[in-house]
């Protein structure tokens, strides 16, 4: 199934929790923030929040800025 991840199409095997997606992408969950269909997902809800077909996911982190 296909989701939109950071603006681009991305294939995942099936519905995944946010935790599972971060693990698959090898991203340290402590250092990012995740938005699922425009709503911020609290870190405590990473295991219970499920990403489904067509969902829009944004994963952000801190980069250099002024």
């Amino acid at each position, binding site marked *: 199934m296909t989701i939109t*991840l*950071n*603006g681009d199409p*991305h294939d995942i095997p099936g519905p995944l929790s946010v935790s599972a997606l971060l693990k698959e*992408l*090898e*991203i*340290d969950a402590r*250092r*990012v*923030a*995740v*938005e699922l269909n*425009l709503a*911020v*997902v*609290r*870190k405590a809800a990473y295991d219970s929040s499920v990403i489904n077909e067509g969902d829009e996911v*944004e*994963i*952000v*982190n*801190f*980069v*250099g*800025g*002024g």
Partner: protein
Amino acid sequence: MDQPLVIAGRTFASRLIVGTGKYPSHAVMKAAHDASGTNMVTVAVRRVDITRKTESLLDYIDTSKIFLLPNTAACYTAEDAIRTARLGREAGMSNWVKLEVIGDERTLFPDNEGLLEATRVLVKDGFIVLPYTNDDPVMCRKLAEAGAAAVMPLGAPIGSGLGIQNPNNIRIIKEQATVPVIVDAGVGTASDAAVAMELGADGVLMNTAIAGADDPVAMATAMKLAVQAGRLAFLAGRIPRKSYASASSPLHGVVGSKA
């Protein structure tokens, strides 16, 4: 004796706030932060690059000593800035935000209406809001009334290095301020930072002036000293400006003079 800078109940030993962008490397950034003595740095919130592994900025910031201030840079609407602030809060686990709502690409001047609207929404949502704003005393007053924890008027356009373009406005903003005033953007060299502090600003925020210098670490040291010198000069109380000379040495007893 000076009091430390306090914003929303949090104390900062240093009055210099520094950015994390545009350094030649993360290692140079870290060395510059150390040299600057800063206790707070700004960071931007951006999409993770999922195509390749990149070094984390956070590996180069000692967050036990340095407080992270996420910004909403490159947001052109209140809506985008609010969205970015909420993501920054989740990524950083703090409710502080340097709020930017940009109104013009070329000057990066703020959009006053969007800034005020976003400030109101985020304050209501429990954020500690530090808005980057024009050097406009009326706007600064409105932002403080909307609940901003500090106001951050620009000295000149972001990254321009032009120095404090409207010193009188900065002075007026400080005179009427009910919250700390941080001069944000426009500093080019140490004397600019000193001028901001001499005008009474509670702090100075800069990125490019340090990161873009030939030797960022040396410039960070210069900025640290300039902020301290400017603050001391402000507290010391400068002499009034006069049009004509006032001799420093006694006028009596000059050799060869008549009685």
